[in-house]
């Protein structure tokens, strides 16, 4: 009982702080935190693939972008759509593409898988970039935010920043809880087995392909949820949402936060967004702030070189370092 309490304290404190946040602030910080929570959902969806199953995908932005485009393209031009059909439809589009990409890319492994997922994401990118379907390179606008109407009654107005914030927070908590339960289930155990040794899982009698395919499709669908939310938040989509820079950024969030734990993905999303904001801060970097990718790139390189387990691994790394120091000091 005490162990359970200890495990739940920290997440509850974080949720409490996030719940109270809109009471303390409005405007930029509220929008920023909404955006970061959407990124956290996106990172969580990739964690299911990379951290839980050991499949490094470099094309995850495709699902995020496809759902965002679907949200805009499926909405009626002169009126608001109902959230209760628009959300499943947008997620469905992302899941369908994930089903297709997964069927082909999961036939390969390791470094091939990285390249193939990247190539399929690029294919989706070109569909929106080169054709008139989604306004080409300029992207398109969402004219009306979807309404939340159930049995003829309007429940809430997603146009209000605070309401939207709570909606995103609810999505984030749901996704986190869903994945936490899923990874504890038999399905999650099989995925963990595939991550550590797929050959052995096959030898033990598991057909690993359907498990990987299901994980891939679910990850695509959850990335679609993030894409849906971001399309509503910004009211605008363009092909850059599907670009491989976006896929690289979300992988970076995972490694920044720490792999193999759901909280690492959330921590990584916050750390990434704050880092990006910091490097773009003109007060500190002056004119150089427009070259922020240089600093971000340098930080990535240093992180990979010196922090292989991410932020969540830093305390353990620190303890290991202290433990190595101590005997010397004692002898000293």
């Amino acid at each position, binding site marked *: 009982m005490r162990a359970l309490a200890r495990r739940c304290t920290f997440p509850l404190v974080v949720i409490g702080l996030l719940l109270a946040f809109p009471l303390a602030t409005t405007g930029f910080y509220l929008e920023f935190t909404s955006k970061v929570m959407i990124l956290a959902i996106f990172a969580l969806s990739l964690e299911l693939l990379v951290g839980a199953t050991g499949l490094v995908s470099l094309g995850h932005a495709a699902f995020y972008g496809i759902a965002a485009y679907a949200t805009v393209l499926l909405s009626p031009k002169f009126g608001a759509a109902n959230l209760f059909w628009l959300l499943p439809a947008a997620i469905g589009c992302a899941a369908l593409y994930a089903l297709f990409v997964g069927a082909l890319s999961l036939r390969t492994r390791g470094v091939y898988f990285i390249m193939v997922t990247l*190539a399929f994401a690029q294919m989706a990118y070109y569909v929106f970039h080169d054709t008139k379907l989604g306004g080409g390179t300029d992207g398109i606008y969402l004219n009306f935010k979807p309404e939340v109407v159930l049995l003829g009654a309007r429940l809430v107005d997603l146009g209000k920043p605070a309401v939207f914030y709570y909606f995103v927070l609810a999505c984030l908590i749901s996704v986190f809880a869903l994945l936490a339960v899923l990874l504890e289930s038999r399905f999650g155990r099989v995925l963990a087995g595939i991550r550590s040794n797929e050959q052995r899982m096959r030898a033990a009698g598991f057909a690993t392909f359907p498990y990987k395919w299901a994980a891939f499709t679910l990850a695509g669908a959850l990335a679609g949820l993030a894409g849906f939310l971001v399309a509503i938040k910004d009211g605008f989509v363009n092909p850059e949402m599907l670009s491989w820079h976006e896929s690289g950024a979300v992988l970076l969030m995972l490694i920044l936060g720490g792999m193999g734990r759901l909280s690492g993905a959330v921590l990584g999303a916050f750390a990434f967004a704050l880092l990006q904001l910091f490097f773009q801060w003109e007060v500190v970097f002056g004119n150089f702030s427009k070259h922020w990718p240089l600093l971000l790139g340098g930080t990535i390189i240093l992180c990979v070189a010196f922090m292989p387990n991410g932020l969540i691994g830093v305390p353990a790394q620190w303890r290991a370092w202290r433990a190595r120091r101590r005997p010397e000091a004692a002898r000293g």
Partner: protein
Amino acid sequence: MDLATLLVQCLNALQYGLLLFLVASGLTLIFGIMGVINLAHGSFYMIGAYLAYSLAPVFGGNFVATLLAGLVLAVIFGYLLEWLFVSYLYERDHLQQVLMTYGLILVFEELRSILVDNDVHGVPVPAWLNGSVQLGDLMQYPVYRLAISAVCLAVAAALYVVIARTRLGMMVRAGSSNREMVQSLGINIKFLYRVVFAAGVALAVLAGMIAAPVTSVYPGMGAQVLIVCFVVVVIGGIGSVRGAFLAALLVGIVDTFGKVLFPQAAGIAVYLLMAAILLWKPEGLFRQG
């Protein structure tokens, strides 16, 4: 499509495919031997093109001198890069390799925008190659594009001779099939890695430099080439230079004729080809061993 047009498109496909081969061969060698997936490989192509642009005034427009100077710089750059960054990655998993080389891309692109700028630039075709050849009655084909194909073929032949016939090539082949064994036979594997990496960088830089007069020089050119090269490597089978050669030609043909026959879907044709090959042979057409 009449015969002359078909011939022109075939020559274009050949030239594009051979250029892709120069970049993809470095990528596949580096992966085959060191086991490192190098996302920054496209950046070397970009760096090559910008070298051709910014070194040209230094050498008064002498193209051959520019090429040689660029190649020397590329080898030094590749050697230093392997020593400073890539050598950390050999024992790491693919994810960390992807991220570090992704970080390198951001750094290279931003340094490029600081040192040069973000505009599109043209590089003049050297005067002595600035003619065209008559094909049939109406069509002409620029000599420079033929020269690109010739240079690429020469490099491909040289690469074949080095890998198949020399002692260095033997070490390279042995290294790609069993790294530990090569090391225990007393071969300086660190030096071999550095040489292969520098050679890979030089091949990509060379491709960028000779492509610059045709494609012009623009930001983001590296990423575009990188992803197409991934398709080439996936189709050809990783670590196989011969596979990369044939796959690059195949991709060149599909891309060029895709643009001619289905201009709407031009960007997608290459990826559909990859999807079809994955269905048929998931491990690529020419996987070694």
